[in-house]
């Protein structure tokens, strides 16, 4: 490598703290289950604490649903389906969903702050990505409710009935929107379980659903851990399971419903290849690498966690990447200038720390920018590993944290082979200034979403979902409706 001159990023001029205000709303002390249009105490009698991962303080107590609670939720959903929702015209259904979209827009700032408090993600992301996208999802699917015949001509689409939905902790509100909006538009009723570490925005959404005047029981929202989820999966009156989470749990769910008439869609893990060719716009590619792996602290199933850089530009890309990492602010998620917030939970932090150790022990070279971390809470500096080979565990397994494994390649053939050399197939990224190369790459990638000269872009109109062990079924777009319909 030629000697290059290093840039000094220290400065006397630093950003003062700019925390988002939390005074415009008040969290409740306790959140009960939302069943049949009302907030009800759990039959389990149990509540668990939900905390702010940035300071480990308890935010609220949240009800834990047991089998009897799930049974009431499913019964409420079934009754709402039979007596009201299935009888309503698509037009009127659509108007309810539009209302949800509009109220989320009105209460956007509150949603963003609560999402950040409960999940640890930077307010910049919850404000600019999670919440507006969630509203957009409802807006988009609202419009489909009276147009299903055009989406599936000659197939006479019909709702499935009661949809059981289980969502993860990385995008709590957004995943709820991805699940609920198409289900309702297609005419189903819903029982949805939020994650045990991030249940709060789902209950804010329950308030919105109340405010929107949705008929009781059309949407039921519960919380709890894996066991609660299993009660939904195994309930005989649930027609459909939609799951987003790890591949391991996805497989358990599929075992449980094998042999039943339940339909399912699975949105599971990933280990996306992000591929930088030498003719790419390198500064923008570096920005794409950052967005790919450090967005949401790397808690993203489609994160670009395997970076492949063409050897001729490896040095300069790594140098630019390190420089860019030096201007990332790690810390208080509520601060408007924070780029990387808190790791979602202690457990996840331990997982990430374990993989960082593995990476070091396997001989890869680690780089982290020097930045102070708060003393309380769960934190991880943005981390990159160079000198990684394809067989390293950090290049093969999903870490779900801000940790990037970088390899080099020489030819197109080689990188295609390496990129596809994984049991996962959720997403991929390609960076080149040459259009014909992009289309070659997109046609060769065994992945459900390929981003070219961008990364981690989402839109309600665009289908999202995986190949291989990253799952099946698509969310978003006209494709996302299919998961919630049956055809003659």
């Amino acid at each position, binding site marked *: 490598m030629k000697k*290059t001159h290093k840039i000094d990023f220290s*400065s006397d*001029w630093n*950003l003062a703290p700019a925390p988002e205000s939390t005074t415009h709303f008040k969290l409740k002390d306790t959140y009960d289950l939302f069943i049949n249009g009302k907030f009800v105490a759990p039959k389990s009698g149990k509540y668990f604490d939900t905390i702010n991962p940035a300071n480990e303080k308890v935010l609220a107590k949240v009800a834990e649903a047991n089998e009897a609670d799930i049974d009431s939720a499913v019964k409420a959903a079934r009754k709402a389906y039979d007596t009201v929702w299935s009888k309503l015209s698509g037009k009127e259904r659509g108007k309810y969903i539009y209302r949800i979209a509009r109220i989320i827009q009105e209460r956007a700032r509150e949603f963003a702050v609560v999402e950040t408090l409960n999940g640890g993600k930077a307010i910049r992301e919850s404000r600019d990505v999670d919440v507006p996208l969630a509203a957009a999802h409802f807006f988009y699917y609202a419009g489909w409710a009276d147009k299903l015949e055009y989406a599936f001509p000659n197939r006479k689409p019909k709702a499935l009935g009661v949809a059981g939905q289980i969502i993860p902790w990385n995008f709590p509100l957004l995943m709820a929107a991805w699940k609920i909006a198409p289900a309702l538009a297609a005419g189903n009723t819903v029982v949805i379980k939020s994650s045990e570490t991030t249940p709060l925005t789902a209950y804010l959404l329950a308030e919105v659903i109340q405010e929107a005047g949705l008929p009781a029981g059309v949407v039921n929202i519960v919380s709890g851990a894996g066991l609660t989820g299993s009660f939904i999966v195994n309930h005989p009156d649930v027609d459909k399971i939609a799951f987003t989470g790890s591949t391991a749990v996805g497989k358990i769910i599929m075992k449980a419903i094998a042999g039943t008439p339940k339909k399912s869609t699975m949105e599971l893990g990933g280990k996306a290849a992000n591929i930088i060719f030498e003719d*790419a*716009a390198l500064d*923008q590619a570096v920005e794409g690498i950052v967005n790919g792996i450090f967005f949401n602290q790397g808690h993203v199933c489609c994160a670009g966690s395997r970076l492949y850089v063409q050897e001729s530009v490896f040095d*300069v890309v790594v140098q630019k990447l390190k420089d860019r990492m030096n*201007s990332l602010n790690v810390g208080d998620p509520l601060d408007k200038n924070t780029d990387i917030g808190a790791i979602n939970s202690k457990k996840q932090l331990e997982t990430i720390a374990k993989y960082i150790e593995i990476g070091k022990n396997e001989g890869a070279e680690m780089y982290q920018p020097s930045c102070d971390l708060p003393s309380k809470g769960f934190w991880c500096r943005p981390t990159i590993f160079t000198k990684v080979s394809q067989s390293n565990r950090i290049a093969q397994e999903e870490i779900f944290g801000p940790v990037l494994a970088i390899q080099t390649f020489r030819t197109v053939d080689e990188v295609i082979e390496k990129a596809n050399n994984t049991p996962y197939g959720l997403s991929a990224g390609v960076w080149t*200034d040459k259009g014909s190369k992009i289309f070659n790459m997109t046609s060769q990638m065994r992945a459900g979403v390929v981003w070219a000269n961008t990364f981690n872009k989402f839109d309600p109109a665009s289908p999202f979902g995986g190949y291989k062990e990253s799952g099946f079924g698509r969310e978003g777009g006209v494709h996302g409706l299919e998961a919630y319909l049956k055809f003659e």
Partner: protein
Amino acid sequence: MKQIDFSNSPRIDQVGIEDRIARITARSIKKESKMQGLLMALNMIDLTTLEGADTEEKVKQLCFKAHHLHDDIPGLPTTAAVCVYPNFVKLAVNELKGTGVKVAAVATAFPSGQSSAEIKLLDTKMAVDNGADEVDMVISRGKFHSGDYNFVFDEIAMIKEACGKNVRLKVILETGEIGTLDKVRQASDIAMYAGADFIKTSTGKIKPAATLPVTLVMLEAIRDYYYKTGIMIGMKPAGGISTSKLALQYLLMVKETLGGKWLTNEYFRFGASSLANDVLLQIAKQQSGIYQSNDYFSKV
């Protein structure tokens, strides 16, 4: 010296640049960092008048303002420089003696650059001989568009030679006439390798003048040049920057792209005429807590 192929400058992806800009403009610069930034911005302004109607009186007033920005507020810095046509240089140098404010002169048949090498040289010499500290030249955009990159390179090198070591040369690309970000990058590379001390976006006579995306592309070019040579080139966005908020976003972009060393008027300038008063308004607001009116701040 190794021949550099300027037709092969790095590619720029416009959408990616916009994404990066969106992250910069989402930053919140508040309280003490805002105050510090505002003072820094004032000290980086090239207070400018470049009009056909300029008179000696106007230039005198401008010079006074440059080191008396608002005497009601103690401790304010001066602007970095005043920027005038070459025929006012002598006057400006006289007016600004002992103030530390530099005198910059536009030259080389500003703003179009449509003239002969002789005249451009004479224009430059006039500015230099009259005592200008800095020369702001324009590149020949016509030649640039027709692909005659060597002509553009040689012309810059010639003007730099005329400036000598002690007069710093700012090279105006006139990005509003250049068209694409790829071309902005290419022109930046030509200017730096030809000997520019500063690269500058615009004359202020063409719209769009300076924008955040164009400036980011130029800052990244400066960074790549520094990686290779260790030489720090300055940056001057000019025209279209009239609010404090925007000025602070520029400064933050410099900090995040090039680091703290570039945050002095040695390496960063704003070419602006109305920015100073908006910054003053904001400083007064920060100090008093009350929103201000233009009526209380002198125009130039």
